[in-house]
């Protein structure tokens, strides 16, 4: 049986949207898939050595379950984003869901290849020393070279 392949494009840098690419990549790797994840635009934040700035915002996120209904005017107040992030992280821990760091480490351990979009690094003038060393830098063509030959290709 030929090795199955999966490619994921991760474009979001919020806590909630960071989970799907890491969960799918680590699981697919456990199933024997060869996996590559291309991190572009805000998704690049998920390659930082320090993931503590990855947050969730209740703003413009009406589907987010809240303990009490909260008007948008209140969600805008300073500190609400940090509070929502703290509550979400507590919930994740309580329910035995892995942290982003743990899932990312599981991906790396299973040889999932991370490609950081070079254009995004230039665009936002990011310092490469802030990103994990296990990622490669490349562009759309690099990624499509792999993605064109995959069984599953997802945009997150």
């Amino acid at each position: 049986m030929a090795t199955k392949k999966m490619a994921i494009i991760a474009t979001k840098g919020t806590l909630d949207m960071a989970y799907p690419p890491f969960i799918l990549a680590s699981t697919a790797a456990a199933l024997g898939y060869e996996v590559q994840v291309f991190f572009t635009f805000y998704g690049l934040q998920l390659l930082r050595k320090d993931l503590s700035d990855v947050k969730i915002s209740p703003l413009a996120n009406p589907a987010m379950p809240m303990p009490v209904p909260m008007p948008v005017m209140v969600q805008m107040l300073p500190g609400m984003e940090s509070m929502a992030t703290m509550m979400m992280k507590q919930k994740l821990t309580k329910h035995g869901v892995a942290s982003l760091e743990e899932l990312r480490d599981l991906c790396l351990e299973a040889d999932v290849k991370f490609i950081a979009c070079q254009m995004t690094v230039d665009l936002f003038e990011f310092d490469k020393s802030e990103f994990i060393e296990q990622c490669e830098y490349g562009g759309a063509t690099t990624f499509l070279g792999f993605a064109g030959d995959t069984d599953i290709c997802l945009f997150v």
Partner: protein
Amino acid sequence: MNFDKEFDASGLNCPLPIIKTKKSLVDMESGQVLRVIATDCGAVKDMQAFADQTGNTLLSSTEEGGKYIFFMQKK
């Protein structure tokens, strides 16, 4: 049922029971049996799907007092 190794995934949620089951199987010999204990009800379907996709054999899948017990035989 006899088993060669045990992995307790109690308290862990998707996808950790599966990923760690896979890691537990790595250093086992072909034909050996791994017993997995989980509390995540999603693991019931996922463990079968893991077996189907990896060629390992799920010998049994049962529930005992709120815990899910799996016997996975390595390919």
